[in-house]
């Protein structure tokens, strides 16, 4: 489904529904006597291009077991539960910040302006911190796997950068 918004940017809407993955059995009583109970429609943001804004119309369907009368939902294989963004958006932001070393604000600006994904700095920061395991403060290498192909030839070098602590910085607990 395609529309055009007031800025002349094409809005491409793809449709996904939980009904496409109709459950075969009830998760509590395992009977196959299931019916569609209710549904909720959510719009999920996906990576667009400068001229195309991509959105997913996701129909979250709740099913009801006729036998035990339990209402349940399923996990859609493409869309994580409770997410407002497609996994590709999160992966893109994380790789830009952690692998390419771009700043979070820069990535947020690109997402907003070039990919038409409305996202805040705090959200991206949360994704990055979760993916980069920021809370860990290792003081040795005991939890890391040693390199499998170490040649025995090693070079050691030091580089120095100034680090300024934040005013309300917390204590580091190891």
């Amino acid at each position, binding site marked *: 489904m395609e529309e055009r918004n007031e800025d002349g940017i094409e809005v491409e809407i793809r449709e996904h529904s939980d009904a496409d993955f109709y459950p075969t059995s009830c998760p509590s009583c395992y009977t196959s006597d299931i019916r569609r109970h209710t549904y909720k429609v959510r719009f999920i943001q996906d990576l667009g291009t400068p001229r195309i804004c991509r959105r997913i119309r996701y129909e979250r369907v709740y099913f009801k077991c006729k036998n035990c009368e339990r209402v349940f939902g399923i996990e859609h294989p493409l869309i994580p539960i409770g997410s407002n963004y497609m996994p590709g958006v999160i992966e893109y932001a994380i790789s830009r*910040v*952690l*692998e390419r*070393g*771009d*700043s979070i604000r*820069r990535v947020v600006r690109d997402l907003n302006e070039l990919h038409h994904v409305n996202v805040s700095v705090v959200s991206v920061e949360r994704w*990055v*911190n979760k993916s*980069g*395991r*920021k*809370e*860990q*403060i*290792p*003081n*040795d*290498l*005991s939890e*890391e796997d*040693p*390199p*499998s*192909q*170490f*040649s*025995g*030839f*090693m*070079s*050691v*070098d*030091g*580089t*120095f*950068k*100034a*680090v*300024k*602590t*934040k*005013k*309300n*910085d*917390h*204590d*580091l607990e*190891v």
Partner: protein
Amino acid sequence: MLLATDSLHNKPIAGALVSSESQSETTFFLQTLKEWLPKPVKFMTIDFSSRIESGVKAVFPEVSIQKCIFHAIQLLLRGLIKEFTRVKNERYLGHIKEWNHLRRISISLEKNERSEPKLDLQFKDTTYAWKIYHDLKTCIIKKSPREIERKLSLYLLTPTFRNWKGNLTFLHKYEDIFIKTKFKFSENSMKYVIPKIYKAWRGAIRELRLELETIKSQFNKIKYLILMNPKNMKPYHRKKLKKYLKIFPWLRSYRKIIVKFYYQFHLPLEKRSSFSFLTQLLSENSHPWLKSAISTLIENQEQIFQFKQIYVSNPKIKNVKSIKVVNEPINKALHQLFQTQNGMRTLENIRMRVSHRLKCPIFISPDTIERFNYQAKLKRS
């Protein structure tokens, strides 16, 4: 931050955030690495840091140490750049300053702002020019215009004036006073003619100063050509170097020694000569950086050429460049990361970002954590 790299695969192995490059921090980092690595370390490439070296010797006493040749060359080049700057200041900048000083003094004397000072001039031509100024002044000081004219015309024919470098420029400007502006030696015109004569002298010394400034800028250009590795020189570099060496023939001896220094890294082990030839670059007044660089190179020359022995004993790794140099591009990547982030404010943030950027585990030394906590507490209080 201390970083260990696998020299053969050219990949970072692990890193540590440390509070300083002290021996205790280096030893802690290397000890952790020693316990963690699956294979023993055979060969270690380091820069000229004495603290890293002592740490390596403490943890890996049997490892053969290679001193990075990139840092060895950098050490000598930095010393030479300092030396060339010293020479430039001594030969050219001081000289140019003296010319400017003469100009300012002559102006203030003409305005009667000051009495004649005693000048302590260092350069021959500035002293000579100041003498000419005095002679001109004694000619001009006469009262009658006719007498001034006679005295000046006689003085301009003397060998003292004829031997002055700026005589032609002066004469050209002196003649212009009477040809272009059509002044004559008369009572009325003297108040215009005398300042113009002094101005002509200043014009002449200006030409001499500009000549010197051109030489100074040429020296700035040749400075970097002299230091270039002959292997990296393009034909236009050679052409320019040849041209400038004609202007500065005294730099030929420097160039010869630098070329010899570069070729030492390409010669077979038995043909290599000792770095003691570098002492020819030194003089009594040499810059302390150059003196210290040369003494460091002579002291460490065996370790600088250690890679040649490794190439002989391990022919498979011959021509692996990363054996003889530490992995500087990693430092560049880190620098870029810090620039993008406008510096980093928490240790967790640095660890996370650096670890992902370099794709290797990074840990934080206990000293750094303690110091960080102490700083944070101080700020809060």
